[in-house]
């Protein structure tokens, strides 16, 4: 089963039906790991009209979501995108309000030491340069939570509010990077954790902003610049965090300040963090690709919501299939998987 089969009519999918007349599609997440199973039922049909048949498949796939006919073509091109799994992943802990609570609480606890360090930075650095003197660390945290809540209630932030949020997050990130660069932080570990949490938040916000900006301004911009003028500046954060001085900083922290006890642990630590920077950057870029391919904000949201709702169901089914019997174990495992998939 290694050849890729091209399907142009539904009849060709029939051989893949199992004994319950259902096709099981494997969805892969990051690192090609299996993330979920999607079951597809084919209604019995006798017509050979392609469009009608595909409509039926679509209706089965999207029972409650009301995707309309025009999204057929969109979905056809989406499934060809290899990296669609990366963007539709639920594994980013910052993407939903429920999961973000975990990080928010951690960040709240570190607030005092962060504020102290930033205040000290302002004394140490006499000239502004790249260091922003205005920051609102608290504001960024609470606004981000608010933004996620509003998305859940389907009353999302406006484009300009999102831009302010992205800018705010960018500014705080720049400050934290400067704090580390000037070696001011009393608690470097807390600073690094905060930085990476904020980087996740920033990446998610940027994805949502890109979406709004593109759909709001696409006609006005036409074939010219598709993204906001500040986008390149925002993306430069990822480049800064990949520079050799920052990598050395992580190595030094791991070796001298942390409780890591061997060179192998230090390697795992800093390489995992470098991987995360790369992954987050890639998510933003992949999201831009997806936005342009789908080209329709309703379909994009439907696709995302569909994925989240169905993941809950397919997680439960996957557990049952794996033959996990003990109800306590099932509950614990479900909670853990849901947390990792970050479903609200």
């Amino acid at each position, binding site marked *: 089963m290694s050849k890729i089969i091209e399907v142009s009519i539904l009849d060709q999918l029939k051989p893949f039906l199992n004994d319950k007349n259902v096709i099981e599609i494997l969805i892969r997440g*990051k*690192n090609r790991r299996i993330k979920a199973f999607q079951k597809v039922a084919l209604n019995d049909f006798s017509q050979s009209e392609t469009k009608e048949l595909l409509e039926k498949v679509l209706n089965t796939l999207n029972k409650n979501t009301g995707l309309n006919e025009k999204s057929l073509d969109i979905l056809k091109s989406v499934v060809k995108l290899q990296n669609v799994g990366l963007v539709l992943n639920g594994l980013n802990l910052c993407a939903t309000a429920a999961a973000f609570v975990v990080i928010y609480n951690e960040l709240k606890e570190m607030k005092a030491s962060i504020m102290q360090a930033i205040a000290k930075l302002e004394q140490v650095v006499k000239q502004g340069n790249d260091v922003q003197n205005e920051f609102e660390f608290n504001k960024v945290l609470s606004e981000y939570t608010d933004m996620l809540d509003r998305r859940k209630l389907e009353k999302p932030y406006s484009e300009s509010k999102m831009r302010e949020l992205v800018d705010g997050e960018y500014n705080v990130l720049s400050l934290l990077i400067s704090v580390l660069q000037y070696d001011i932080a009393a608690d470097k570990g807390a600073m690094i954790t905060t930085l990476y949490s904020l980087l996740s938040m920033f990446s998610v916000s940027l994805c949502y902003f890109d979406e709004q900006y593109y759909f709001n301004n696409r006609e006005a911009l036409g074939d010219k610049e598709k993204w906001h003028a500040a986008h390149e500046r925002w993306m430069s954060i990822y480049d800064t965090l990949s520079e050799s001085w920052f990598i*050395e900083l992580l*190595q*030094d922290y791991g*070796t*001298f300040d942390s409780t890591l006890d*061997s*060179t*192998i642990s230090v*390697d*795992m630590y800093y*390489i*995992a963090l*470098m*991987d995360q*920077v*790369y*992954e987050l950057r*890639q998510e933003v870029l992949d999201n831009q690709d997806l936005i342009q391919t789908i080209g329709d904000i309703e379909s994009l949201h439907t696709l995302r919501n569909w994925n989240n709702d169905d993941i809950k169901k397919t997680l439960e089914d996957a557990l049952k299939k794996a033959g996990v019997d003990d109800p306590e174990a099932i509950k614990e495992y479900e909670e853990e998987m849901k947390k990792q998939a970050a479903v609200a």
Partner: protein
Amino acid sequence: MDCKEFIHETVMTLSDDGFDHLKELLLEEYLTFAFFDDTEISKSILAEKIFDYFEKLELKTGKDFDKHLNSYIGDLDAIVKRCIAKTPQTKKKDAVSADVPRARKYYEKACSIKSFRSMSVRQLLDYTRLMMCLYMSAINNQHAEIKDFNYSVRCLNIEQIIANLENEQFIGIKTIVDIKRFDTKELYDRDTCIFILAIIALTKIMDDQIQGDYYHE
């Protein structure tokens, strides 16, 4: 640690690629088999051979495995020490303390591992990793003093390290002819043992290298 523990945690835990590399490095120069073909030599067979080597070495030199290990640790320190930039002296009136060069910080970290009375294999490998990365950076800097260095395992090149060790000279002794630090003509000898220990440790360190899913150095 004893010899068996060292061999068990290094040679016996190598991946197939790592083991092939070790065979290539050891069998050419140091160890030979009278009856086995290269392809027939498994991890256990090579491990036995190395274990026998250390036993014979003890009989011939009168020094046990621990003493040879100490020679390895000490000689590595003496060689690397010379290449590390010193911390600049500050005058008493200066309020700010001098910046310790990064290379020196890691050199001192390696020395702190050395000070453990009985090192574990993991500690020996950590010590080797730090010293060899410092040495590698010095090699790339034409043996001039280094203030910073490349911490990553990827910078290590075993063949280059061995070639440079072979050319190390004794410093401070004025003679007409250059005297090399290591004399590896004899197989069952302190100096050759140091090379064999270095090769085994380095192969293990490179075999254990952590690779990022996306990040590649």
